[in-house]
């Protein structure tokens, strides 16, 4: 019986070959790449959720967050590098939805890696043109009369939706509230607590 194994995928081999050549040329080091991998590993939606919960509990923080997202986030000890963050607030009157039609720009420093669907041509083409149909597909029910505001991340800004605080969460602590905030609520394709 002959040995069988998965045929190597070309891109996995290509990545290894490319990285080895760059390291040998002194362009990057293994340590740098490993450090970056670790850095991104620590970036999860829990960071964004912490920001959201603080905004729910502290109106002055919320005002600063809406005025200058990056500065406010740094107050919480979250290091965001060169991120230029715009935070957009959901209210009973307005629901926000984030997209990058041209590629897949995403606030990775606060949410980690973007989900596949966010990068898909289907989402990128439909979110600007028929946001309400997209929201329905994601199961987001809006009150009639709510305005939908789409944000296309075409340049240097990155966007975070500040979802509405769920009804019934009034007795919870800030940390318990943060646990109600999922990634999609901060993109606009879900509500917090859903």
């Amino acid at each position: 019986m002959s040995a069988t194994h998965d045929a190597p995928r070309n891109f996995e081999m290509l990545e290894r070959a490319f990285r080895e050549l760059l390291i040998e040329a002194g362009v990057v080091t293994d340590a740098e790449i490993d450090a970056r991998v670790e850095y991104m590993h620590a970036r999860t939606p829990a960071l964004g959720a912490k920001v959201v919960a603080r905004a729910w509990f502290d109106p002055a923080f919320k005002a600063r967050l809406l005025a200058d997202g990056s500065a406010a986030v740094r107050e919480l000890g979250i290091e965001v590098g060169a991120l230029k963050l715009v935070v957009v607030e959901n209210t009973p009157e307005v629901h926000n939805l984030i997209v990058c039609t041209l590629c897949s720009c995403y606030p990775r420093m606060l949410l980690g890696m973007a989900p596949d669907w966010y990068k898909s041509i289907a989402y990128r083409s439909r979110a600007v043109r028929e946001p309400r149909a997209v929201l329905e597909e994601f199961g987001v029910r809006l009150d009639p009369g709510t305005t939908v505001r789409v944000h296309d991340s075409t340049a240097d800004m990155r966007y975070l939706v500040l979802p509405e605080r769920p009804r019934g969460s009034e007795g919870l602590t800030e940390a318990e509230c943060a646990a109600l905030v999922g990634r999609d609520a901060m993109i606009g394709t879900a509500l917090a607590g859903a």
Partner: protein
Amino acid sequence: MSNHHDVGGAPSSEPIDRSEHPLLPWEVRVDALMWTLTDATRPGGPQMTVDELRYGIESLPEADYRGLGYFEKWLLSMIAVMSRKGAVDRAALDERVAAVTRSYHAEHAREHAGDGDRAHEHPA
């Protein structure tokens, strides 16, 4: 002039596929490499800009743009930019791909070398 990346509002009633795949290690490394090479705070400055990389992806033939995976496209674009800048030689890269592929096959052959013997222990 390639516009196939400019898809905002393009007619589509395609349902959005919401399945998500955990990133493979090589994809995570592509991402890490991309952010390392474009990091403006590195000593000596960045090797390239995100804008150059995006342009490289936009310049892929439409079939590749639509058909290749997200990290596959970033990798191809990084390679194109770095070889244009002379930091990577295409021929050397091809040779290295062949070499790492041979290593990969050899590693897997070693892992499965005992399988044939074990099969004889179990009557059909």
